[in-house]
């Protein structure tokens, strides 16, 4: 419950219906894309403009009320999970595309603009916005920046951090700060990179300048079938090692292909152990040359069948399965848990083999569908929450996959963020020395810890409780102490 004085001060800034306090009104905000965690906030505010955001933050700062900023609520790590005693600050009304400058190839947008809407608005100029998370029809650009979102085309065109020029944000104190610059480089510390992927812990984003790219004249996708998952994994490495940087390089295993085929009827080969989708884009000459090379590498890597899209409709059809993989898996299993680890590409075959072994051991099917070119795994563990013990075993299976990712030199999250979901994993991946820097930076921006508390960075106490000992490159901290 909100303190009445605070509640009336809040109502003076954002009067109803932009202020929701009744439990039935705040219910829709109790969770995001990670439905395992739920919490109802004390209030939800939907400001119209930046002036209101500033006033809200100043008020909350003075009263020490926690704030959770929220875009479209599609986070897969609980990034916008509310705090019971705090408010949710929704940026849903920040939906304007402020300007598109085709000569500078940039667009200035508000944080509530949907990812895909930017490319749609830029299309008349022959431009597009490259990062394309699979949820791009729904997710908002503000959330993309907060989570440093990726997508199928990030292999060639980079993550959100590579495609954002400038971010305007309101700090917890109500001060407005611009990060980055319109030019290639901004001087001083790279605070733009710091705020990108900071999961709403450092500021509330109110405006973003994104880079736009010229739409390639032609794109073609090759669909290659393999009779063995490890061979497909090795083929991914071979494509990259051949110096080819495809527009997209995605992999689906049999479990995923079968789920998807029932859903979209894209004509995927159902007998294949794994399918790779490899896209080439550019001018027609470049695409022809690159596609010939891709075909060659895939054949040498043991592909049993290669099909290349004949036209744009077929290309979109081949991609439709990949983009719809999550909902398709949702149809064949009561529940699924999506993992988001990233590993060096060369480790792919071994890690995939281990996941298959664990899947048998736990008796939990696992569909692999992922950004193979980046080494970004998305194993989907299928389970039934109503079956006793299924959920616990699923979480344990997922944790083991993430630990394996760290062990081979990777990370516990490639693009979904830490949120509430991976706080413990952070204790495993980062040594106390690094975690202390994270906490120091947080304090520099938000001394009272009011912005999105309990997310992103674990406290050292939590890590101590969790009892994970961090081992980096086989170097034990304090090797002089006797152990085990």
């Amino acid at each position, binding site marked *: 419950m909100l303190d009445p004085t605070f509640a009336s001060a809040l109502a003076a800034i954002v009067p109803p219906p932009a202020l929701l306090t009744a439990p039935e009104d705040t219910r829709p905000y109790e969770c995001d894309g990670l439905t395992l965690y739920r919490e109802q906030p004390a209030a939800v505010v939907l400001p119209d403009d930046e002036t209101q955001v500033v006033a809200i933050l100043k008020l909350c700062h003075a009263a020490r009320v926690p704030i959770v900023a929220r875009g479209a609520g599609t986070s897969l790590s609980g990034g916008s999970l509310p705090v019971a005693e705090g408010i949710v600050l929704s940026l849903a009304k920040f939906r304007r595309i402020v300007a598109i400058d085709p000569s500078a190839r940039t667009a200035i947008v508000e944080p509530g603009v949907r990812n895909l809407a930017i490319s749609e608005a830029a299309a008349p100029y022959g431009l597009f916005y490259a990062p394309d998370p699979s949820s791009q029809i729904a997710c908002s650009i503000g959330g993309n920046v907060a989570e440093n979102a990726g997508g199928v085309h990030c292999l060639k065109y980079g993550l959100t951090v590579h495609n954002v020029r400038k971010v305007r944000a309101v700090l917890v104190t109500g001060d407005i700060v611009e990060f980055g*610059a319109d030019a290639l480089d901004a001087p001083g510390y790279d605070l733009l990179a710091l705020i990108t992927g900071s999961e709403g812990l450092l500021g509330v984003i109110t405006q973003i300048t994104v880079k736009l790219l010229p739409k390639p004249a032609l794109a073609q996708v090759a669909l290659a079938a393999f009779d063995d998952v490890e061979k497909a994994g090795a083929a991914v490495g071979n494509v990259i090692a051949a*110096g080819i940087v495809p527009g997209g390089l995605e992999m689906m295993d049999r479990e995923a292909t079968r789920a998807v085929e029932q859903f979209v009827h894209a004509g995927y080969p159902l007998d294949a152990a794994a399918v790779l989708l490899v896209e080439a884009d550019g001018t027609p000459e470049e695409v022809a040359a690159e596609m010939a090379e891709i075909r060659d590498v895939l054949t040498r890597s043991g592909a049993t069948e290669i099909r290349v899209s004949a036209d744009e409709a077929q290309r979109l059809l081949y991609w439709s399965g990949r983009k719809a993989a999550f909902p398709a898996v949702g149809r064949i299993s009561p529940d699924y848990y999506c993992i988001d680890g990233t590993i060096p590409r060369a480790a792919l075959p071994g890690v995939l083999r281990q996941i298959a072994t664990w899947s048998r051991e736990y008796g939990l099917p696992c569909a692999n569908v992922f950004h193979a070119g980046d080494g970004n795994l998305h194993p989907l563990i299928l389970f039934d929450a109503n079956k006793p013990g299924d959920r616990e075993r699923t979480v344990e299976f997922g944790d083991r996959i993430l630990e394996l990712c760290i062990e081979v030199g990777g990370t516990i999250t490639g693009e979904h963020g830490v949120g509430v979901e991976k706080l413990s994993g952070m204790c495993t991946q980062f040594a106390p020395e690094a975690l202390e820097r994270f906490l120091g930076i947080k304090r*520099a921006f938000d001394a009272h810890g009011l912005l999105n508390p309990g997310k992103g960075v674990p406290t050292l106490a939590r890590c101590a409780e969790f009892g994970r000992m961090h081992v980096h490159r086989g170097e034990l901290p304090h090797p002089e102490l006797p152990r085990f």
Partner: protein
Amino acid sequence: MNTTDSTLRQGLSEVTERLVRDYGERAVTSRAVREQHSHGEGLADAGMPDIVVFPQTNDEVASIVGLCNAARIPVIAFGVGTSLEGHVAALYGGVCVDLSRMDRVLEVNDADLDCRVQAGVTREALNAELKGTGLFFPIDPGANATIGGMASTRASGTNAVRYGTMRENVLGLTVVTADGRIVHTGGRARKSAAGYDLTRLFVGAEGTLGIITEVQLRLYGLPEAISAAVCQFADLKDAVDTVIVAMQLGIPVARIELLDDVQMDACVRYSQLEFEAKPTLFFEFHGTEAGVREQAETIESIAAEHGGSRFQWATAQEERSKLWKARHNAYYAALALAPGKQAFATDACVPISRLTECVLETRSDIAATGLVAPIVGHVGDGNFHLVVLFDPAKPGEREKAEGLAARASARAIRMGGTCTGEHGIGIHKLDALVAEHGDAIALMQAVKRALDPNDILNPGKTVPFERAQRRR
């Protein structure tokens, strides 16, 4: 002298003694070596370190920084001293950590296109080591800088238009923090959404947040075909407009360099090139045979529409090397225009749509001052440099030159750009940073305070902080 000062002095002499004892001949206090470590390649700045230490391991760097932190003694990291903005000057004395002996390439992962190097590896040494793997590290700021120095200043160079700057090419770091601890950031994964982006925070922090000791870098496959071409114009505006159109079309050119007629005149003389002293574009194309041909044809036709000459090709390795060597020696070529004069280089970067306007205004400004100041730059990124020549013996000329440079910074900022496309802030551009980034400076200071509460790491640079305030 007050007590604080005398305590600090006492601490310094203790630290110096300890370093000499621990590091023997790798801790040097001779004036010549200290002088050599007091400046980069820009104008000399006041400030010699009290001692120069040559560590060989991460642990050694950590223990040096730990000692200095305990005694509140400044620590300045040093690579090979190619900075142009006074990054390495020891403004408050202290310990210079010369990383040149940490020069091992630790691993090369061919299949993953990455490598890990110690900070003191130079970019040329790295590329020599990569020979035979079919891979290369493209970032090329001209000088044969160390990878650690390039990461610290977020260097870019002639081919950033295609391969990005150090921001895009550093995957992870090992950093010694102000409290003398070793922190690993990032890693070999191509992307990570875990925790704040410490890697990019340390990249470009100019040694003020930590000392970079190891760098994980992205590598690239050597392109199948490379060719370079030269195109000359009667008019500077036409040359710049050609670049803008090419960039708007998104042609993936590997390098585009603009040299104005003054710079071209200097390069023709200095490097014995057979070209005219006219505004000139140097291009380099990377890709498949077909791709390279197609890119070149498109750009040649754009250039022709703007009155450019036919392309003169340099396809053989030696011809290309000669061309780019001439470009890299632009600074020395400019110096040779007027023997006896001094020079400094400035750096400006604007959104590409404002490039023509910015270059032309700068050009008229140069003419109005009567100084010689060639323009040269990586214009594909909207980035260009002035090499401002002045006679130190002539009263008022240095001030005139500095005024020109300050106006160039202000102009770039006014046009939505920045005063530091790639050389960094160091000490020369602190004022411009304040002008450009007023509202974010308090945050930068807060970050500095969080990571280096005693202000021992390269004090007085990049972000004005307590010690600088104390001096005033």
